[in-house]
Each structure stands twice: as C-alpha cells, then as structure tokens.
C-alpha cells in the first residue's frame, strides 16, 4: 500500500497557508489600496442622473439597490464590461468550462463508461472545480535545459490568443467586443498566431516529444489554414462584407448553410484539424508521442493550455454559427417584458422601494443570445462527437486531405457562390 504524502505535516501546511495570507494582506494594503485610489481618481467617471459619479458617491450608492442600477447601466456600456464579462472572456470561459464537463460525460456515455461521478452530489457536477484545485496546487516542473521565459509565457499567450479570437465574435445585435470592418481577416490573423505559440512552447521545452508534437502541430495547422480561408470566401462573396456582425445580420431570412453546404462541411473539417481534435489529433497522439507538445507542461501550465484550447473551440463553433447558421437570428421566443416593469420598475423589499432602470437587457438581445447559445452548443456537440467515433489518421493522409481534397472542395464552393450570384438567385435583385 502506498502512502500519498509521507512527509506531510499539518502544522507546516497551516504555516504555509498563514504565510501566504500574510503576504497577500501586506501586498494588498501597501500596493492594492493605493492603486485603487489612484485608478478611481484618474479614470473618467460617468455622469449619472445629472451628477458626476465620484468614488464617494459610488461607494454610498452601492448600499442602496435603487441607486446601484444606474451605476450598473453605466458599467455595462463600457468596453471593460464587454471585454471582461458578457460577449468577452467571462461568457466564453463559462461556455468553455461547460464544454469540458459535457465532453467528459458524453465521451464516457459513448464508450459505455460512467465518467465523472463522485465529485458533487449529482453526476460529478463539481469535477471541474476539483480538477482546477488539483491543477493549481500541483508543482510546476520545468525541464532543466528549457528556455524558461518562453516556456512560462507560452501557456498564457495561448489563452490570450484564444481570447482575442473570442473578441471578434458577435453574440447578439450590437453585442460584440470588437466591431471592426474586416473582422474576418482579423480572425485569420489571430488564427495565424496559434502555430507560432505552439512551436515556441515545443521548442523552448528542449525535449524530444514536445518537439516532434510541435512540428506536427505546425504542419497540421498550416496545411489546414488555406482550406479554412478558402471555404469562407463563398460567404464573403454573397454578403459583400467582411464585418462579422453584418454577415450574421444578413442571414435573417435563411442561413448560408442552405446555399453553401460544401463550404460548411469543409470549414467543419478544417475546424477539427485546427483544434487538434480526433481524427486529426496527431500533435497530441498519446499512443505515439506521450502527449505531443503538451508533454513537459505540468500543473497549472497544462490547465491554462487546456482552457485556451476550449476557448478556441468555443470561438470556432461560434464562428461557424455566425457564418453559416445565421448567428443570433431566430424566431422571437423570449416573452416581452411586462409594461409596468418598463414604466415603473419593480417594487422591492420590506421598505417598499421603487427600483427603476430594469430590465438590464432588451428583449432582442436576450432572444439573440438564446439562439446563439443554442446553435453554438449544437455545433460544439458535433465537434465533440468524432472523438468517440473515429480513429486517428496518418500525417500523409492528413496532408493529402488538406491539400488536395479540401482545397478542391473549397473552390467548388466558390464557384457555387459565383453561380448563385450570376444566375440572379442571390445578391442584388435576387432573393434578398
């Protein structure tokens, strides 16, 4: 029988906890509080109800629910809210975490296993939290000859690149982090960073398995980038715009997958390859090269790469939804808000206070988000499904598939789009 931690001493563990708490407090008081004050007095604060919001007013209003709503409204209009919470990082990380759990349960069901079961009362629902705690409390071991700064930076850069991919995705009308005119080209530019980060991480580890995995990842991502780019050209030709919000809004009557199914299939396959998922998981082939380019990553570094991978998965699924499935468009299912809520706000609390400024979101935005999330979850399901079904293919088959078949199909898709335009089915004077 093995002992898990023979030298474990409770007293030392508690001492280390108290040590860390002390340093947190000290640094928080000496650096954190002055920083908060400097930020509060330097940044431009919004004007609410005719008054300039000072830190003093903000702190006093926070105790009163009737007065906090204008602050929340002002905060929701800022870029910071979009970056941190709704269409940005928080929303995407939530969906990514859900994807990890759903994948483990679904894969287990496909293979007649049970999957996560014991953590949490219901079906192992807290497994993800347990995994996170495990990863964050594990030691990070870095190979002695590794190029340490690059090796440390690579997982963080991977998450950051995935997050900047998420920034281009429009979730609901007007709800997008970066509404740029050439959003699709921006997406291609961000996708181009992933092979570089992968090869940097693999090279800096100075070990054989990560190196082989990194080279494979480079070949795979680079080969499938061209069919990826070409398969989306049909949509751009029919829409006449590279703005992702405009492309999503242009599909109000029918999604482009109706007219360009070949492009959608090619994009789906290249998506699997860019995400290094089975059947294209050569960079991480665990039966050949331990874990590919992830071999030397341990503890939280591996956790960060995992988070980045699933953020990227969400972003690709969302891109598929925006380009081919109509984005946020769908029948209105969210009921309209009651008229007295819009006019008077809600009555609240034992001392009746009239809270106005509700609802925080409009009906269109809630409906759009609902349809977007439903479609994205469906696409994520189809990305996860091949993992339980297909074997891994060889690298020469992969390159052959990417360079001949998929590029050929992508050009067929372009000619279908041209034909639709010039036969007058779509475009000016056509169906739209």
């Amino acid at each position: 029988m093995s002992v898990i931690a023979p030298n474990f001493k409770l007293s030392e563990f508690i001492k280390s906890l108290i040590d860390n708490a002390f340093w947190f407090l000290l640094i928080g008081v000496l650096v954190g509080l002055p920083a908060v004050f400097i930020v509060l007095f330097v940044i431009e604060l919004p004007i609410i109800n005719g008054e300039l919001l000072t830190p003093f007013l903000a702190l006093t209003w926070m105790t009163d629910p009737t007065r906090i709503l204008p602050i929340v409204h002002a905060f929701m209009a800022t870029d910071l809210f979009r970056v941190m919470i709704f269409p940005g990082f928080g929303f995407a990380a939530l969906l990514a975490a859900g994807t990890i759990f759903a994948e483990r349960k679904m894969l287990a069901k496909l293979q007649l296993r049970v999957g996560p079961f014991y953590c949490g009362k219901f079906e192992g629902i807290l497994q993800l939290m347990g995994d996170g705690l495990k990863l964050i409390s594990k030691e990070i071991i870095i190979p002695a000859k590794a190029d340490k700064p690059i090796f440390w930076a690579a997982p963080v850069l991977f998450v950051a690149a995935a997050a900047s991919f998420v920034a281009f995705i429009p979730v609901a009308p007007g709800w997008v982090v970066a509404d740029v005119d050439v959003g699709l080209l921006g997406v291609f530019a961000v996708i181009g960073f992933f092979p570089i980060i992968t090869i940097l991480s693999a090279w800096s580890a100075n070990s054989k398995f990560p190196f082989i995995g990194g080279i494979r990842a480079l070949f795979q991502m680079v080969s499938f980038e061209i069919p990826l780019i070409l398969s989306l050209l049909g949509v751009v030709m029919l829409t006449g715009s590279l703005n992702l919000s405009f492309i999503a809004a242009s599909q109000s009557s029918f999604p482009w997958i109706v007219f360009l199914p070949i492009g959608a299939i090619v994009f789906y396959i290249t998506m699997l390859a860019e995400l290094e998922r089975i059947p294209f998981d050569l960079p991480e082939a665990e039966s050949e090269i331990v874990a590919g380019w992830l071999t030397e990553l341990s503890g939280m570094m591996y956790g960060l790469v995992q988070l980045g991978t699933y953020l990227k998965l969400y972003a690709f699924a969302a891109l598929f939804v925006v380009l081919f499935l109509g984005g946020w468009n769908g029948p209105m299912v969210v009921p309209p808000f009651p008229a007295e809520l819009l006019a008077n706000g809600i009555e609240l609390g034992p001392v009746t206070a009239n809270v106005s400024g509700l609802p925080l979101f409009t009906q269109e935005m809630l409906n759009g988000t609902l349809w977007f999330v439903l479609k994205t979850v469906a696409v994520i399901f189809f990305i996860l499904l091949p993992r339980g079904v297909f074997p891994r293919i060889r690298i020469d088959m992969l390159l052959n598939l990417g360079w001949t078949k998929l590029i050929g199909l992508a050009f067929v898709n372009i000619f279908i789009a041209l034909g639709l335009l010039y036969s007058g089915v779509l475009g000016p004077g056509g169906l739209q």
Partner: protein
Amino acid sequence: MVGELAGNYSTVVMMFGFAIVAMAPALIISRMISPRKRSNPVKFLPMECGQVPSGEGRTHFMMQYYPYILMFVVFDVMAIFLYAWGSALLELPKTATLPMMGFLAIMFGAMAFALYQSGRRRIW
C-alpha cells in the same frame, strides 16, 4: 484617420491584455501554494518515458513534409488576395470576374505543380 482605424482594434488588444492579466495570477498562485521540495537532478530531466535522455533535445528531424510549409507561404497570400476580390464582388462589373478566373487558373496550375514536386520524396 489611421488612429481611428487602429482604435477599432483597441478592444482586441484589451481582450489580449485582460486574458494575460487574468491568467498570470493563476501561475503565480500555483507557484505560491504548490510544494517545492526534494529537488534532485533526475526530477528536472526531460520526459523520455523513464529512460535517461540521450542526445540533444532539439534533435535533427527529417523534414519530410517541408514543401508543404513552402507552399503555405505562397498560397496563404494568394488566398487572402481572393478576399479583396470577393468582398467587393457585388460592386464590380461582371467583366472583372474574367481576370480573376485567369488568376485562379494560374493558382491551380502552380498548386498542381507544387503538389507534384512535393510528392517526389527523393528530392527532399
């Protein structure tokens, strides 16, 4: 003008920066609370399935599929050129499609030749 265009992308940079600011603490906290004891040289060797590693980590590697990387450098740029045409297609006269077909024919020819050359394993 240029500043305005660049300003549109500031949120992308903010997103990039926010991910770094939000994720770097995870590594720092992990470094603070994880055990770091009993160091020995074997622990920090690169992973080689339990064997003592031999030779360089960055080994010489037969780049059997190197031509595909070269092809990527050329055809990625060509694919992006197609976007300039595709996004303006609705405003262009129909005659403007003919030169593009010529461009595509050249691209196809070049790609077929490159694929043929990359298939000849003996010259790589």
